[in-house]
C-alpha cells in the first residue's frame, strides 16, 4: 500500500523533475515507515545550523508541497534527554529545593506550526497520538508512585521552565499555503538552542486524519572556535584547566605592565 501510489502517479504523468523527486522521496521514506502515502514532499532551507561566535539565534525555512488540499502541521523536536526537576518549599523561612523527580526523556526543544488552529485540524485523540501541541507532549516520569494529579504538576513545571528560556513554544506557529499545494513555515531557533540532531516532522492531514508524514533531520552544531574550546574543555579537561590558569597569569601580568606605564 505504501509504495503503490507514487508508482501509479509516475505512470500517469510524464517523468519530470518533480515526479522523480517524489519517487526518490517515496523510496527514502518507505523503509523508514514514517510515511503512509506519498502525498507530501517537504524540505528545509538548510540542514545544518552552525553555532558560531556571533550566534544570536536563526530561522530555518521549511517548504514543501502536498498533492491534495488539507492541513499541514510541523513539529520541531530537539534531541530527547533525561531531565531533573526540583521543587522548592519553605524550610525555616527560606525557599529551598525539597523534592525532585527525573523525567526519563524530554525533548530539549519543541516548537509546532499549523496551517489552522490545532483544534480544527484534528480531533484530540489524533493530536495526542502525534504529540501535537505542548499539552500532548509525552513526558514519562520514572517515578511511578506519583498520583496523576501530582505528576501533572511536575510535568507543567518542566514545561514552564523550558518555555521561560524559549526552548518550548506554546503558541502554534503558522504554516502558510501558497495556493492549495505549496506551503512554507518558518522555524525559529533561539540563541540558547541545545546542540544535536533535531527532527522536523511534517504531517499532512485530511478530514482530521494523518494521511502522510515525513521526518527531516536538522543538525545543530557548534562550529569553529566555539566547538574547539568546548570539545577541548570536555575531552582534555586537565590541559584546559592549566591553559585557563596560564592565560589568566599572562593577562594579569600584562595588566600590571600596562598599569605601571600609565
Amino acid at each position, binding site marked *: 500500500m505504501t509504495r503503490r501510489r507514487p508508482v501509479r502517479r509516475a505512470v500517469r504523468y510524464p517523468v519530470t523533475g518533480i515526479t522523480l523527486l517524489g519517487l526518490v522521496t517515496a523510496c527514502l521514506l518507505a523503509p523508514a515507515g514514517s510515511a503512509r502515502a506519498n502525498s507530501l514532499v517537504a524540505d528545509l532551507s538548510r540542514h545544518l545550523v552552525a553555532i558560531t*561566535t556571533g550566534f544570536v539565534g536563526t530561522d530555518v525555512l521549511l517548504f514543501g508541497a502536498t498533492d491534495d488540499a488539507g492541513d499541514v502541521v510541523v513539529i520541531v523536536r530537539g534531541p530527547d534527554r533525561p531531565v531533573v*526537576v*526540583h521543587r522548592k518549599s519553605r524550610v525555616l523561612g527560606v525557599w529551598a*529545593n525539597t523534592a525532585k523527580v527525573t523525567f526519563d526523556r524530554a525533548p530539549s526543544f519543541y516548537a509546532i506550526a499549523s496551517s489552522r488552529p490545532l483544534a480544527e485540524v484534528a480531533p484530540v485523540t489524533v493530536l495526542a497520538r502525534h504529540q501535537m501541541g505542548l499539552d500532548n507532549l509525552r513526558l514519562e516520569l520514572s517515578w511511578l508512585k506519583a498520583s496523576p494529579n501530582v505528576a501533572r504538576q511536575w510535568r507543567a513545571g518542566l514545561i514552564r521552565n523550558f518555555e521561560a528560556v524559549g526552548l518550548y513554544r506554546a503558541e502554534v506557529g503558522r504554516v502558510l499555503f501558497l495556493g492549495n499545494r505549496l506551503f512554507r513555515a518558518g522555524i525559529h531557533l533561539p*540563541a540558547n538552542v541545545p546542540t544535536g540532531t533535531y527532527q522536523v516532522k511534517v504531517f499532512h492531514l485530511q478530514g482530521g486524519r494523518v494521511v502522510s508524514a515525513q521526518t527531516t533531520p536538522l543538525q545543530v552544531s557548534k562550529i569553529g572556535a566555539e566547538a574547539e574550546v568546548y570539545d577541548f574543555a570536555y575531552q582534555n579537561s586537565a590541559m584546559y*584547566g592549566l591553559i*585557563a590558569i596560564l*592565560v589568566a597569569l599572562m593577562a594579569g601580568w600584562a595588566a600590571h605592565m600596562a598599569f605601571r606605564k600609565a
Partner: protein
Amino acid sequence: MQIYLPIAEMSVNVFLLLGMGGGVGFLSGLFGVGGGFLMTPLLIFIGIPPAVAVGTEANQIVAASVSGVLAHWRRGNVDFKMGLVLLLGGLAGSTLGVILFSFLRGVGQIDLVISLCYVVFLGIIGALMLFESARTIRRRKTAPGQRRKLHQHNWVHGLPLKMRFRRSKLYISALMPLGIGFLVGVLAAIMGVGGGFVMVPAMIYLLGMPTAVVIGTSLFQIIFVTANVTFLQAYFNQTVDVVLALMLLSGAVIGAQFGARAGAKLHGEELRGLLALMVLAVCGKLFFDLLVTPSEIYSIGVVR
C-alpha cells in the same frame, strides 16, 4: 553585539560583559578588594549557570590577583612565609570545597548554599566594617586616640607548632593561619570568590598582622588558591569559561585603573564605610530573594 560563550552555552552582549567587568573593576580598584563577591552574584543574575559563574570567576581572580600582587611585591609588602602557610591550608580547603560543590550540585542544593554563604559572610563582614569605620570616624572627630598595642595576647598564642614570621613581626602557632587558609579555601571554591574579604579581617583581627603586609600576602595566596579552584572546576565539572573570563578581565583591568585613581581622593575610613554599605546591600538583596515567595517553585536540575 553578541558573543557566544562556549562553556556557558549562551549568547551574551559583549558590552554588558565589558561593562560589568569595568564596573566591578572600578569598585575593586576603589576599595582594594577582589570583587569576586560582586561579580559572581551579577553573573548568576544575568543568567550564567551558577556553576559556570563560580568556576569562571575563580579564573578571573587569578589574573586580578597577579596584577595586584606584583604591585605589592615591588613595595615589599608580601610576607611569603605567612603566605605559604595560609596557602597550604587554602589548597586543602579549596580542594574540599570543589568536591563539596560537585556533591551539592548533584543533589540540587548548590544555589541555596551559595546564597546562604553570601548572606552569612557578607552580613557579618559588612556589619563589622560598618561598625569599625563609624567608630573610627567618630573618634577622629572627638579626641586623639591612645596609642594601640602592636597586638593583643589571647588563647591563639597558647597553641602548639609556633613559627616566627619576621615580616609580620609575629611569633604564633602555624595552626592558626593553616586553619584560616583552609576555611577561606572552602569558601572560595563554593562562592566563586578569592576570599580576600574574609581573609583580610581574619589576618588583622585573628592573627594580628600589620595592615601594610595584609593585602599583599592575602593576594599572594589567593593566586594559588583560585588557580587550584580553576583547575579542579575545569577538571571535574567543566565549568570554566575562558571566553567569559577574558571578557570580564578586559573590562576589569580598565575599571580598576579609574577606581584606584578615584580611591586616592577619598579618606580610608569613609572608603571602608562605603564598602561596608555595598557589601550589606548585596547581602540584603540575596537574603530578600531567599525569603520572598518565588514566582516559579519548579526548576531544572543537573542530571548526574
